[in-house]
């Protein structure tokens, strides 16, 4: 192998590193290491001027190896690989040393130790740089199509946007109707458009796009492949109703159906039949039979000829270049007894309250009783000091205030009492809070560390709180209706996450790679996320993230081919004895069996392999090596670390 001429650059990272690591001392300690041609320090290695300087050095001195000691490779490995590439060096001859997260930040209490550790880390990176050899990226062709999971507002908007870019879209919705949660809302802040109107607008736009294929009642049940070519297996449930259906006869079928079940669309405030329409403006415009609750009595068939119990579940296979996940959220369901939920009948949740406003016309009635005094209890299932959900659900303050104002506008004599923990109507939403107060809504904040209590006294429902404005004095109020302002939680049925192997954050929502640098990308190449499946968001924020994800998914595939990392596992067929251990260890199904020359051995599919290394330790023959992380290279790094 050609002898290496290595350039070493040690970054101050402003003061992030140099506050604790003596950067100059590190430089001196490594400048005479074997192979090192030049060793420099730099204020910000990632800045444009430093990048230019490194490129000059590579060109002027003919360097063929490069080490930058800076932050985590998660942040800047690719930055410096590209620097190498622009200078004409093979980018896989670059080795990254992390002396910030693993050095200065981890050992801010021990400057000398941090410096010593930085020296060892840089030396081990140099040791690897002496051994690495150039690699060429795998170029694979990309299918020019995108699958979008979830046809809520985010998914529909992303689908429209990608379709507008002349790229075919498969929009896959688990429910029989599109529109997701927004279809359930009435008037919304800030435009006072109703959820139904928004969904109608999006649906009408969507169906005009010839390159969108919409699947409803359809779930993804299997995914294989990787960026550029995902194979998805879809399961499409039958509606048991023909696509073209006589409306009047269908209505008769609904009338005769003897089965009544709680209607999820109205959050169980009302019931529906086992054969049903979703709501007046359902999309697509077709009824459905809820087969789990249907008793097969056959009455509907007698009045409507478009009922078809012979319809079968279909399995559909599609291939796409990228997958965009917009699977949304669930509203938090309070536990039994949480603020008397499910114990006292006039305690309901915010989503139920919103439906209640929509369902009542002249008077606000709940269970036949007229409602005037309404108590709203905020942060139910959010900002829990003890519970699971420590996060703020972001949308609920504004949504609750808007609902309270809608109730006040639509019905007479409403008194709104808000029991909150600090109102968070951020940005322009502040005007709503202002309006609400000037219209007479009453806001009572609980003292820090205390929560309101709901209880029954003499047959009345009462709310009690330690009021911050009167130095913690207890304030008690009677309520005709208690509305629990419930936050957003991740979907309870989140199989799509398991199928696509999407990582989750500590709040259990899907997690992006980096909130600022790569806010809609995931660690699964080619899979983007957006909307409330990655955390609480309002509609505008969901749409913004949906369009950002659409741009990203489109940019992966629009050139028709893409490059993937050549850092993959390599199997030596002569050493492999085909014991099958590696195929079981591989989380990506990248390994398969081949037989050639009367020998059976394992082989790697380079475009699927992620280079995770799971197969290496299980191989009893040591027949697998990870390119760029070979035993040789790793051992040289360990030796350098051990020598100090």
């Amino acid at each position, binding site marked *: 192998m050609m002898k290496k001429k290595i350039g070493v650059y040690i970054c101050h990272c402003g003061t992030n590193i140099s506050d604790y690591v003596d950067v100059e001392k590190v430089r001196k300690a490594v400048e005479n290491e074997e192979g090192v041609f030049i060793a420099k320090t730099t204020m*910000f290695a990632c800045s444009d001027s430093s990048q230019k300087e490194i490129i000059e050095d590579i060109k002027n001195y003919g360097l063929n190896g490069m080490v930058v000691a800076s932050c985590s490779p998660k942040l800047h490995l690719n930055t410096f690989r590209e620097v190498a590439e622009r200078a004409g060096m093979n980018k896989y001859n670059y080795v990254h040393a992390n002396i910030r997260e693993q050095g200065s930040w981890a050992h801010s209490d021990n400057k000398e130790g941090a410096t010593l550790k930085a020296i060892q880390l840089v030396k081990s990176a140099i040791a690897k740089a002496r051994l690495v050899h150039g690699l060429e990226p795998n170029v694979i062709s990309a299918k020019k199509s995108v699958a979008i999971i979830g046809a809520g507002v985010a998914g529909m908007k992303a689908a429209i946007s990608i379709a507008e870019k002349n790229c075919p879209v498969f929009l896959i919705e688990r429910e029989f109707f599109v529109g997701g949660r927004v279809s359930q809302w009435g008037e919304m802040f800030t435009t006072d458009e109703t959820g139904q109107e928004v969904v109608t607008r999006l649906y009408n736009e969507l169906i005009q796009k010839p390159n969108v294929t919409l699947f409803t009642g359809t779930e993804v049940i299997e995914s294989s492949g990787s960026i550029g070519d995902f194979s998805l297996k879809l399961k499409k449930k039958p509606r048991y109703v023909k696509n073209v259906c006589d409306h009047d006869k269908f209505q008769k079928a609904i009338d005769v159906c003897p089965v009544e079940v709680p209607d999820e669309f109205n959050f169980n405030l009302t019931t529906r039949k086992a054969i049903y329409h979703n709501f007046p403006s359902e999309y697509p415009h077709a009824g459905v039979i809820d087969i789990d609750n249907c008793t097969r009595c056959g009455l509907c068939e007698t009045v409507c000829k478009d009922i078809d119990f012979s319809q079968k579940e279909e399995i559909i296979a599609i291939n796409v270049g990228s997958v965009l996940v917009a699977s949304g959220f669930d509203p938090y369901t309070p536990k039994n007894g949480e603020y008397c939920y499910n114990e006292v009948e006039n305690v309901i949740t915010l989503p139920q309250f919103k439906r209640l406003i929509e369902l009542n016309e002249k008077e606000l009635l709940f269970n036949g009783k007229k409602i005037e005094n309404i108590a709203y209890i905020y942060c139910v299932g959010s900002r829990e000091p003890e519970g699971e959900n420590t996060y703020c659900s972001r949308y609920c303050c504004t949504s609750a205030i808007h609902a309270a104002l809608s109730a006040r506008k639509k019905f007479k004599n409403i008194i709104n009492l808000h029991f909150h923990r600090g109102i968070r109507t951020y940005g322009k939403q*502040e005007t709503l809070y202002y309006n609400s107060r000037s219209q007479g809504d009453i806001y009572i904040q609980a003292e*820090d560390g205390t929560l309101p209590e709901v209880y029954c006294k003499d047959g009345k429902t009462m709310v009690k709180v330690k009021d911050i404005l009167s130095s913690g004095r207890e304030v008690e109020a009677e309520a005709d209706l208690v509305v629990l302002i419930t936050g957003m939680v991740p979907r309870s049925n989140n199989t799509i996450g398991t199928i696509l192997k999407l990582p989750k954050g500590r709040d259990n929502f899907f997690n992006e790679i980096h909130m*600022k640098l790569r806010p809609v990308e995931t660690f699964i190449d080619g899979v983007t996320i957006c909307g409330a499946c990655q955390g609480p968001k309002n509609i505008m924020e969901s749409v913004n993230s949906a369009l950002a994800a659409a741009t990203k998914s489109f940019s992966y595939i629009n050139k028709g081919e893409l490059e993937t990392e050549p850092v993959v596992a390599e199997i030596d067929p002569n050493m492999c004895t085909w014991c099958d251990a590696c195929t079981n260890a591989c989380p990506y199904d990248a390994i398969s069996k081949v037989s050639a020359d009367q020998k059976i051995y394992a082989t790697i599919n380079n475009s699927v392999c992620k280079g995770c290394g799971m197969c290496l330790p299980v191989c009893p023959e040591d027949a697998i090596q990870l390119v760029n992380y070979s035993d040789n290279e790793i051992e040289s790094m360990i030796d350098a670390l051990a020598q100090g």
Partner: protein
Amino acid sequence: MTNQENKYQYDALVIGGGIAGGEAALNLASTGYKVLLVEKDLSIGGKMIMLSKVFPTLDCGACITTPKISEISRHPDITIFTETEVTSIEKISEGDFKVNIKKNPRYVIVEDCTGCQQCEEACPVSVSDEYQYGMVGRKAIFIPFSIASPKAAAVDIDSCILCGACERACPTNCIDFTQKTEYIDLNVKTIIIATGFNLFNPLLIPRFGFGKYKNVITSMQMERQLAPTRPYNTILRPGDGKMPDRIAYVLCTGSRDETIGNPICSQICCMYSIKQAQLLMGALPMADVTIYYIDIRSFGKGFEEFYQQAIGMGVNMVKGKIGKIKEKENGDLILRYEDIDEGIVKEAEHDMVVLSVGVLPNSDASGYFKKEELKLGFHKFIYQPDSLISPARTSIEGVFVAGTASGPMDIPDSILSAGSASSEAISYLIQQ
């Protein structure tokens, strides 16, 4: 002044080179479109490049911005004009906008400048440094800041005495006092407005004493003191150079305040103040930090946890609005406020006060349009006619808005909004 008849042609014009404009330009360029990015300042990077660490992950602001800036500035399909303003835009038809821009002279040939700073040493004129928010001085010829892009000197011609010392000192002869203002006509097919926001000027609230009491500073000045490229290399109060140990934050300075004409919440001040408080506790372990607030708005992903972490670190949170600030003879400050928890008016002494200044609209862009009207909303941010479903659309078809030009936003939301604007712009370009 010259009026050049240059004919330039681009697919997209992005106005504003902050993080939103930069992100939008990158999205467009990586889809194959030719982009002109126009920035009125001497460097791209906007306000974000000036920040220390950013909430809630405490990534260093420069570490995130600089590589992005570098990617923007070397992208073959992005042309950047700094120190350039848009003077007029006229929509001829769908997909055809006639734009006139004014390129101000920098008096330095950027391509030849190596950033050696010898001109700075030679220059005899010292003035206040706006990039350090007035906390230190700079010369009349200067490199805006160490991670500026382009990293090249510029002459502040209003302060320059034309002594010629810089020209003699410059080893590459890149200083050129003959440069003139250029007016350039160009045609573009779509426009993204990413003109950002203005910071509230606390001089408008005289009872806080900003500008009069030296130890009352703005949050942006504190941001600079905490940044890696900071002016003092530590935290000092400007009055006497003492290291402060009782620091107060006054939230909602210029936000949620009808009296100064800005009733809305600025969306970022709670979080950046909590972040600065955490950084201060690291930089000055002995210091007490108190945050005076109305409501804490830690609403985003990981924000509430970040707020609780600050409380855990010992940041003192006081619910109460500051009424007035007085200065003692030794430069310490007395804050008069109503302590909501106790229900009484109190006074507290601090040795440094940080005013958490809010986000005000930058409505310059509405003045560019000559024929069509670029409408502003009620709060003078750019109006979003379809804010729920197409937040990036404006009142003019083919013109989109990204980032804080349409309202207060934090960095992640600005970046997503830039993604949204570029997606709409790409669709618009394809349909032309």
